[in-house]
Structure formats: structure tokens, C-alpha cells
């Protein structure tokens, strides 16, 4: 059973009356527990594809199904519980809430679903990534690697079905990048989570279940 499925999706942008076709009739299906790597040169549409698959954006045409549910027409509020429980996001630029501490950032998704153990789970996760001492720090007091580890914890606290990670190591040096990726893969293994990862790293592509390459708006 596919966790997420794209059927003939197309995404176009219109800039100054000129239509740019970023994705052109792409179909894709990711099976449960699968580890998919998305590759492609800069500007090839990787981020666009990810945001369509995760419901952050809507395709110009075609359909997107998440756990067999059509989310193409879903409203922001319809998507909210999906984002909260089914999906985890890790971004290249972390996107931590600046006014919340590391711990509060991690807790947040669990608190939204009124998980009484939010605090304990978050503390446990931070401990696991070696940041228990940093839990009261605000994002601007953390290094890039630390921020990304916090973002990771936040992505997995609700034990999502699928994690979308868009170049999570892109802003990090190789050592930090490796640490973050190892954690991601460890978590994936533990919970049999589906993982869709955008990366340029050949090493990772090698251990993935499958790899797709985007070029000229199509999967090649």
C-alpha cells in the first residue's frame, strides 16, 4: 500500500505572462517503510515536488493521495491533523520557532494533539540527540547542527508515518551532516517510517531503497 502517491501532477508558475512548467506530468508512489531519495540539479523542482507530496502546496493539475486520501483539494484546516500526526518535516534551513526554546519546539506538535506526555517525550528525544543541556536555549543560541537535531526531534515526536526531509544537511558541514543523517536513518529503522529525502550525497543514495532523479520537470 503506498503511503503517498502522485498521479500526473503538473506545477506551473506564471511570471510576467510567461508560464514556467516546473513539474510536468509526474507520477510517483512511495510504499510504506520505503526510503526514497530525490536527486536533481538545482532548480529542477525537488523542493516543489516535496511540497506537493506533503500538501504544503497544490498542484496545477493532477492528484496527490496521502494514505489513500485525496489531499489535492484539502483545506489548510483539513491538512492540519495530517501535518501534525502523519507527516514530519525537516528543512534545509531548520525553521524552528524563534520564540520557543529547543524543548518547547520539540514539544509543540505533541502539545497540539494534547499528548500528556509531550514534555517527557521531548526531553527524552533531546537527550537521545545529545542536547539535554541545550533544552532551554532559544534557536538563535544554537549552532546549525544543533538546530537541525532539534528540528529532527520535532519532526518525529508524534511518530509520523512519513518524513519529508529537504536537504537536511545542506546547511551543515560534513561531520554535522553525517550525525543528523545517522539519526534520521536510525529513527527510520526503529519505527519503519517512510522517508522521502532530497539530497546530493551519493553515499546516501547508495543505501536508499530507491532513487529518482528530476530533470526538466520529469523523473528520469
Amino acid at each position: 500500500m503506498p503511503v503517498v502517491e502522485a498521479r500526473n501532477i503538473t506545477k506551473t508558475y506564471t511570471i510576467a505572462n510567461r508560464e514556467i512548467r516546473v513539474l510536468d506530468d509526474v507520477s510517483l508512489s512511495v510504499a510504506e517503510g520505503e526510503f526514497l531519495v530525490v536527486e536533481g540539479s538545482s532548480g529542477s523542482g525537488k523542493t516543489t515536488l516535496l511540497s506537493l507530496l506533503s500538501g504544503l502546496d497544490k498542484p496545477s493539475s493532477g492528484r496527490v493521495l496521502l494514505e489513500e486520501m485525496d489531499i489535492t483539494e484539502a483545506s489548510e484546516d483539513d491538512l492540519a491533523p495530517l501535518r501534525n500526526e502523519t507527516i514530519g518535516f525537516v528543512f534545509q534551513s531548520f525553521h524552528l520557532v524563534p520564540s520557543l526554546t529547543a524543548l518547547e519546539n520539540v514539544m509543540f506538535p505533541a502539545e497540539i494533539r494534547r499528548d500528556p506526555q509531550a514534555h517527557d517525550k521531548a526531553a527524552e528525544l533531546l537527550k537521545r540527540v545529545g542536547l539535554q543541556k541545550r533544552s532551554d536555549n532559544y534557536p538563535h543560541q544554537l549552532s546549525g547542527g544543533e538546530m537541525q537535531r532539534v528540528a529532527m526531534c520535532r519532526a518525529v515526536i508524534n511518530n509520523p508515518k512519513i518524513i519529508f526531509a529537504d536537504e537536511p544537511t545542506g546547511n551543515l558541514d560534513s561531520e554535522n551532516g553525517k550525525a543528523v543523517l545517522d539519526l534520521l536513518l536510525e529513527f527510520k529503522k526503529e519505527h519503519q517510517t517512510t522517508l522521502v529525502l532530497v539530497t546530493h550525497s551519493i553515499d546516501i543514495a547508495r543505501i536508499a531503497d530507491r532513487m529518482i532523479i528530476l530533470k526538466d520537470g520529469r523523473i528520469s
Partner: protein
Amino acid sequence: MKNGILHPRFIVRQIVRSRRQAIVFVLCVALSIVTLISLNGFSASVNASLLNDAKTLHAADIIIQSYYEISPGTVNTVRQFEDQNEIIGHRVWEFYSVVRNRKGRDSLLAKLKIVQPGYPFYGQVVLKSGRKFAGVLTPGSIIVAQRLLDRLNLKVGDPLHVGSTTLTIKDVVLQEPDQPVNIFLLGPRIFIAAADIDRLDLVKKGSRVRHFYLIKVLQEDKIRSIADRLRDVSDAEQERVDTYRTARSRIKRFFDNLFFDLSLISIFTLLLAGIGIQSALTAFLKEKEKTIAIMKTVGAKSHFITRQYIFILSILGLAGTIIGLLAGLLLQSGLDVLFRGFLPENIALIISWRAVLEGLCLGVLVVGLFSFIPLHRLKDIKPVIIFRKERIRSQARLPIYLSGFLILAFFVLLVFWQVNELKTALYFILGVILLIVITAVSTGAVLLILKRSRVRSLLIRQAIKGLFRPKNATRPIIITLTASFAVIFAIYLIEQNLDASFIQSYPGDAPNVFFLDIQPSQLEKFSDVLGLPAQYYPIIRAKIMSINGQKINRQQERRRRGDNLARTFNLTYRNHLLEDEVIVKGGRLYQKSWGDRQVSVMDTVADSNQMKIGDSITFKVQGVPLQARISSIRSRTRESIRPFFYFVFPDNTLRDAPQTIFTAVRIAKPQISALQTKIVENFPNISVIDTTELLMIFTGVVKKLSLIIRFFAAFSIVAGILIILSSILATRYARIQEAVYYKILGARNNFVVKVFTLENLVLGLVSTGQALLISQAASWLICIKVMNISYQPFIIDSILLLGVTLLLVVTVGLLPSISILRKKPVVFLREHTQE
């Protein structure tokens, strides 16, 4: 290019990109000058059309006035000047008396003015018929105000009983030069010809008549010397001699006082608007940080960048100033409506170029002063912020202190300029500083508590977190909102308390009809006619000559804002305390061993003139000096419209002095008119004052005044609103970011709305709550210590006030958030991906 201004397109784009912030900035600038401009322009108009023509306002060149017969010395001197053809003199008598119609036997308190032919020297008495005043006011005729006809059901041609005679109403007066506004008259006007004065039988020794001698000097340059000569021969204790320049008309004093209070409120608004300018500008420049950092990265020098933004600010500031000026002029004509009743119907509004110029200068100064700090901060923007979300810290403290000092100096100078009175100005400045310090301290404390608090609810926690968002102007917002709401609440509470003390809670048992000028010989018969038990108070009119041998400086006293010692006082004698009096100093009313030469003084006069037990006061009673030591100080336990006396003597001291008798009784309202008529029929010389009637007039004036004051106070609310808006715009980016992240993490729209609402609610609650506490404390202090009235907290009103302001804060806070909520997550993420 290197040192100049960048391309105009750059400038325009900078403004358009942050148009919301720019608009708030422009509005703040406009607001900062609008109130002062309109007020100054309006007072210039009032002065020009009503007060500037001082000769008309007094209807003469020299005015001699007295509460007694004009002394023979003065009269003789006037005659001499008249014989030398230097002047023309006219007598005028003015007093209140109850008049009656014949048919319905209704009666009404009216203000009589008895004039000789030739009155007025300057200006005109305008009659309804359009005829000349002098031709109509012949002996036996009277001219009355329309209100008198309405109240007594009379028409022109009807007879009217005045004093002991009957006169015929010949016309209706529309306007008189020396009484341009009649809202302050306690009864409608009646003009009577001097030839009828004896028939009235009202102007007698001891009666409450103002005697005037109006003098026209034929050669303008002799006015001063003749006035000086008249002053020399006049009885300085009883008569005042003024030229039209030195005389201060009541109406002018009223407007001076009112404009004075309003300009204090306007200065307060200006201060808030200045803070608004600062925060709007900070919001505007905040959006430019990245642009500036990039400009610096590619080599632009700090002062080059600063120059660009000074240029942008000048454009925006100019726009604000022009809008402010136009709005001020527009508002000025609106003030006409607001002040209706206080002003003659056809007041001409002029554009005071002086006020416009002042407004322009003010605009430039305010923008300059309050823009300094935000502009100075541009220096501290480092190219590095492109890469890291680093907080900008200001290195140089000195310029910031300097700017703070300049703002303070500007504010102080402005107060002195507008207020023109050292002591009040100092009190005002101290008051404002105290208010801000108290607010700042308590805001600091509340914020600390909030920050430390551990709240379980996610919503409330997020809302409180929002207050401490980096670069949020929470503290200054709360301080300004608290201060402005506190001022407005306090005005409201004091008004309510005044209303309650004087109007609403007119005690059920307090007397409501006063009888003045009862002659001792009439007492027995009066008591029969009245047919009610009543307490009679003898009144002896006197002036204070000296205290502890120190002569009273009359000129100086008259300039005092409140009560003064130069006026005539009503003395009385009795050996007991009144029911609502207590001794606060001296132990007993009179000291046993001091004999008859002692006096008990009311605490209000004693306090405001630093009198103490044992001090000696010299009075003059009908020309006879009377020296007495202060034996005790009394206080009143209830403040209501009950008879009270500042100076009370032992029976023996004054029993034989020339006196009139006064009494006050309580009667059911419908019977007042009949009793009034009955008394006046029997005793035409007795003045009957129906306080229920007075109260109505008084209430009308107070209502009108409070409307005007509230109107001006409302501007400071506008300043508060602009400050909220600018703060939200300053944190717009942070808010969008939070909203987007919340949504990505699975929060519904609803959640975000609730968090934002709650955040504003907390902000509003803290500000309004503090404001309420401060205003309660301040109004209590003012009512008890300054106004000497009892204080009620008006809990229900306060809660309503709190609710309304809270709603205002929350609404204003949420409005700009609407566009924030609409922002799509994916769009934001793409825009802010490389941070």
C-alpha cells in the same frame, strides 16, 4: 551618486514595500500636530472674534466696579472729569432678582441690568426687532431675553413685575457686548432704564448689587492717566478701577482656563504621538534591515545609507505634517460645533497663520527628535545579519541618552510655551514624569511575573511567549497604553465624582431653595409667610485687610487661579457648630480666655492660605476694621449644597453689625414656584434662588465641558492605537513566521487566531488593568486632596470602561493580523529559505 541620493525609484520602492509602516508613521506625524494646531487655531479665532476687542467686551474704556455704592470721592472725581469734557460716564447696576408675571403668577430668577441712556459706549445691544437699543429702552420699558418670555409665558407688550413696580416688555435682546455668551447666567437677562431704579426699590444699602461706572475717555492717550487718578481717589478696599486692557472679563478667564486645560491634554497626546513616530519608524526600518545589510556588504557607508532614509523620512514627515495641518484646520471648524453654547452664534473662524507656522515647526521638531534613535540604530546594522539571525545591539549609548535628554527638554519647553505659568507647568511635568515612572516600574514587574510564570495551557503559554518575541515593543506599548488610558480613565472618574457630589446625589434632605438679603426688620413677617421651620443665618459682608499685620496684596490675589483673599466674604456669628461641621484644630469653636476678638476659620481657606491657630486677621466691615485671632479651624463632614461660612464669629462680636439674613429650606419641587412667587410678592427685595434650576444650568455647562475635554482626550487614544499598530507591523515578520510554523506543525488556523487574540488580550489586560489602578489612585487623591469632595470608585463604570478599552486593544491588535493569517506556508518557506 557617491554622496547623493539614490535613484528615485529606489526611494519609491522602499516606501511602497513597507507601505503599512509608512502609513502609520505618516498618521503619527499628522496626529502629533493636529490637536495643538486645531486648538491654537481655534483659540486664535475665539480671541479674534470675541475677546480681542476688549473695549467692546467691557463696553467702555475704564470700568469701576464695586459691591457697594460707588464712593462719593470716586463719583465726584468722575464728575470733575466730565465737567472738563475729558470723559463721559454712565452708571450700570447689575443683580439677580425674582420677577413675576401677572396672569399665571409664575416667577423666575432673572439677571437685571439697569443702564443709563448712552449705554453701551462700544459694541451694540442687538434687539430682535432690529431697532436701536437706546430708542426702545425708555422709562417704564424693559427689554428681556427670549428665555424669560418662554419660561413665564409672556410676549412682547406684556407687563412684568420687577421689585416693587410693573414694567412693560418692549423687545427681546439677542446679544449684548459685555456679555457675549449667556450660558453662565443663572437667570435670563432683563434690561431696565436707570430712570426706573427708584421705583424698583431693589438697589438699597446691603443689597447684593454690583455697581458699575462705565467711562468713555474722549482722548485715547489719556485713558491710563485718568484711570490712575480714579484709582487714587477710589476706595481701594471696595472698588476696582480697570481699563479695558487690565480688566479680565469672566468669559475671557473661562476660555483661558479651558484652553489651558485642553492644551495640557494636547501636549500629552503629542508626547504619545512622538512615541508612535518612534515605533512606526522602527517598524519601517526593521523591514529594511536586510536591504541595508546588503548595501553595506557591497560597500555603502553608514552615513550614505542614513542619508537615504533621512530623505525618505523627510518625504513621509512632510506628508504627515501637511495632512496634520489640513486635518487641524478642518477640525478647527468642527470645534465650532463642539463649543456651541459657549460661543456666540456667529463666530468667525479664521485661519491663524501663526498657528499653521507653529504647527509646521512642531511637526519638523517632533519628527526630528523622535526619529533620531531609530535612524541612529542603522549604524549598528552589520552585514553579518545576512548570514545569521543575530540580534542587533546598539554600541553607543551616549547618543541615545542625548536624544532622551533632548526629547525631555523639548517637552518641558513646549509645556512652558503653552502653559505660561511656572508652577502649573512644573506640576504638570512632574505629574507626567511620575506617571511614566510608576507605569514603567509596574509594567516591568508585571512582565517579569509573566515571564517567570509557568502556565499549563498551550494557548496561554504561546500568547505570553508572543509578548516576549524578540524586538517586540511590548514594554513601551504597555507603558504608553497604560499612561494614556490612565489619563482618560482619571478624567472620566473625576467627572463622575464631581457629578455625583454636586448633581446626582443632591442629598434628599438638603435645602433646595435659598433666600438671600432678608432684612432683620423683615425677619418676623418673612418667617410667617414662609410657614416652614428654618434656620436663619446672619450675613455680614466684609473684606480681609491684612493677616498678621501683613496687608493683602489685592492685585496678586486676583491673579490666583482658585479662590482669593481679595474678594468680599460673608461673615456670620453663632456660638455653636453646624450639624455638618467638626473642629479639626483648636479643640473648641472659641477659646475661653480670648474674649470677643476671635474667629473660627474653615479648613479650606486656612489650608490654602497657610493660616494657623492664633493668627490675627483684620477684616473691614462697612468701613470699620475688625481684628480677630483664629480660635479654631473647622471642616465640613459632607460636601453638598448646604450653607457654610468660611469665617464664624462669637455672637457678641457681630450682633450689632449691619447685616442681612439668609436661610435655606427644603420644599418639594412642584411647590417651589408658588412659594417663590409668594415671597417675592411680599418682599420684593429678597432674592429667592431655586437650586434645582441652578443645578440644571450647572449640569448643562458641566456636560458640555466634559464633552470637550473627552474629545481632546480621545486623541491620545488614537495615539495609543497607532502605537499598537506600529508595534504589530514591527513584528509582522516574526508573526507570519510563527503562524506558518504553527501551521506546518499541524495547528489549525483557529489555534493561530486564538494565540494572537490571547496575546492582545494579555497586553490589553495588563495595560488597562494598570491604567485602572493608577487612575483610581490618582482620582482618589485629586478628589480628596484637591477638590475636597468624597470619592466613589464607580466599580461598574470602571469595569465597563475596562471592557471597552480591552475590546479596542484586541480589535486593533487583530486587524493587521488578518493578512498575516492569510499568508500561505509554502510561499513563506520559499521566501525565507536561506536564512
